[in-house]
């Protein structure tokens, strides 16, 4: 079955071992990733990103997008790379799920294409944080590109934020 997908790179190079996110998995698979076109509300260029102290590492900050406040998620950091300061002008995939809007910061947009979908090999699936991809698309040359599930990604981020909030409250004794 053909899927309309956005192909992109989450980070410039193959992610290394995570520094600040020990719970995140190290990606061994190809650096190319895919997103179902229907899951993407728009592809935007980020403006000034305001850093949010006490947020977990993958949350780069908050950005204003036509008047809406949108949290920026560093997709590379979610997948295990170390986080970098957000750069103005970086591309981002804008996703809306369950009334939550989020901008997933990526390194580069590669292509938009209709590609055949298949089950993601378990070896590649295991290298990603649980449930973030179950399918793949077959790119030119036969390479399998994980098809990210943004609902799972948002849930994963929500859990990271909740954990960080509890940890901060416990340390600061603010509860």
């Amino acid at each position, binding site marked *: 079955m053909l899927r309309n997908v956005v192909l992109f790179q989450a980070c410039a190079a193959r992610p290394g071992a995570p520094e600040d996110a020990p719970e995140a998995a190290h990606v061994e698979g190809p650096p190319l990733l895919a997103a179902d076109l229907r899951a993407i509300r728009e592809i935007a260029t980020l403006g000034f990103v*305001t850093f949010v*102290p006490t947020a977990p590492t993958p*949350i780069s900050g908050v950005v204003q997008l036509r008047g809406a406040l949108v949290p920026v998620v560093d997709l590379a950091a979610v997948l295990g790379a170390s986080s970098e*300061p957000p750069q103005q002008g970086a591309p981002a995939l804008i996703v809306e799920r369950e009334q*939550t809007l989020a901008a997933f910061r990526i390194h580069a947009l590669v292509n938009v294409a209709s590609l055949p979908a298949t089950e993601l090999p378990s070896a590649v699936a295991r290298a990603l944080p649980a449930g973030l991809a179950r399918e793949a698309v077959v790119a030119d040359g036969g390479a399998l590109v994980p098809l990210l599930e943004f609902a799972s990604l948002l849930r994963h981020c929500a859990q990271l934020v909740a954990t960080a909030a509890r940890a901060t409250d416990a340390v600061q004794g*603010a509860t």
Partner: protein
Amino acid sequence: MTAPGDGDGPVGGEADFDDEELEILRQIFRGEAEQALDAITSCALGAGLERPSAAALAELLRRTHALKGSGGTVGADAFVELIHQLELTVTGLQHADAWPAVTNDLIVEIADGLRQLLGAAGAQAELVRARVRADLRRLAPSAVAPEPRSAAAAPPSSTSAPPPSTSPSPPPASAPEATATDALDPAAPLPMPRELSGSGDLLAPSNTLRVDPQRIDDVMASAGELLFDRTRIERRAQALRSCAKEIARLRQALREALDDAPAGERARIGAVETDLAYQATVLSQATSAMVDEIEMLRHSIGDVQRGLQRIRMESARTLFLHAARAARAVRRATGVAVELHTAGESTEFDKSVAERLVDPIVQLVRNAIIHGAEPESARLAAGKGSHLAVHLTTRHEGTALVIEVRDDGAGIDVAALRARYVRAGLWTAERAAGAADQDVLAALFSLGVSSRDDADELAGHGIGLDLVREAITKLGGEASVTSRPGAGATFTLRVPLSTAITEAALFKVDGQVYAVSQHCVRATLTVDPGVTALLLGGAAVPVLPLDELLVAPWARRARPSAEPPREPRPALLLELAGHQAVCTVDKLVGRREIVVRPLSPLLAPLSLYAGATISGSGKVQLILDAAQLIARAHPPSSARRASDPTQAQRRAKHALIVDDSPSIREALTTMLSREGWIVDVAEEGARALELLRDQPYRLLVTDLEMPGTSGFAVLEQARDLEDAPAIVVLTSRNFPDVRRRVHDLGVRAFVAKPLTRRKLLEAIELARAPEAAPPAR
């Protein structure tokens, strides 16, 4: 008064709701029903003469089904009977080959009729019902039950004996579900307060306009954008003024040069200077005019914002109704003779503020009765009336709303409170002995200690005031208390009229601008390096260096060995609910009027932030929560941590209700409050998940079908919590596949709407029973 239900009568002879509770419920149901009927109308109208889309039909059927559950719960039997017929008919038509052109018009007519039925009484109601029935017959002649020919054939009324209890097994999906049959005379109108009652003219035009609150919020946000535009224009005006000054300086230099210039050049330079003077005058006049126009713009923006705020305002009436209900419930539970007096019903404040004030006010009214109660003989001996008087008043003071709950009871025993703080290890004996009475009373809000010696299910746990403080603090307000022995206590809440626009103090830390509510800023000062506390007004106030709290990980990596500052640092003195903290910053920016926006739901668990605003240049600026900053500056003592009973006690009977139907939320709150539960409510799944992440609950009662995050998503996350609550599912989708899916999620307690107290209590008992009990299918 009898209990609505599907065959099961009142528990132990007690009705589900008393008359006043039922009146409140029916008011809420009326609003809910009108919205749902509007949606049904919209689904039908949107399709023209064609069959509505599958999505529109699904929405239409969802609305009719939800109304059946809500209507049944509040005993609106006549309405439920007709909406049920509409649902059956449309379900039948849904799969028919043809969709006659008149169908959509008939659905609209029926929705109009049902809307009129909500406000009709007696013979008028009978007429409307007959017309709706006729329309239903035209819609699908075979689907509508014949009109009752006599009282005997009508649905059982309150005077008829309830039918024998039926099996709890669900009805087949295609069968009509049981609805309220034993509550009221089906012909009876929904009782409404005088000002809401129908005038008798069913077709009288309405002079109100119902608007989706989101639309108002959107316009409010747009009006807020005008503030940023104004700031940008002000900056440009400032630049033009600088330019005019520079031209003046250049003219001066030119005039000086003119004196030294050769005679032949003087005329030419003089002409240039004259032109320059003319242009400088034009620029100066234009700049002045621009400044005047900015001032006019400022007034206009203010008018727009005030106008929008007025649209969002509602009176204190609803708040008073909740308080009256709470007073009645406590009176019934305790037998205390009490009179609730209210004043300021016409006081208006923002709807979002009103909603968040309900729980604190209910708590304070309960407290006033339970703690203020005295034996009648003691009251009479003290020259008071035989009934405890509780006064609830609301008024405006500037941009603040002030609410007072005052009783003429026994007052708070301050000496006993001092002893209790010491016994609980919260204060040292020296501190307790030296503290002023007012400080002892103020500590009631934060220490989790009750003013009462004994504890029962109603009070004495020291939890209520903690919740009051939390809710008021979240609104950016303050709570205070005064008391005189033998003369009663007065609790005063002071909150902003609106939370959308506020004055804020802006400051910079690590290159980023932050804001904090100006309402909490007492002073600006400087703090020497290394100082951890300042002596202010005789008390040691802790210093919180914000550059340590608000630092990015990459900044930390970039300067791991950054030296501490050597110069005095600017700081803000914050004060809230009697607590102070000094926060050092890099630079004070100034005071601004800002539009407060909620942070994304994704970031909502981060309690440090009260929201965000957008600067004139379009950057997001985070608003820090002053209460959180103060709390972080005052880490709890080990004694407090060891003895803090708040969390455990709050959890003891803390329930979360999740339902998108206001009527069902209100009915559940009434029922659970009567059983001694402290109740939080969420109107949709996403909010429920936030609350579940924030605090532990003993009980979760959730609907399944809600817009946005569904009840199933709530169940999935709730069951995985470390300390999962007992779960009761409440739904109108009483179908085998739904029950199976709920069961597969590990939930054993399932209540089919319409809701009755007996069904709810049985389900709670089942949900809280040990795991060995077999799951209910």
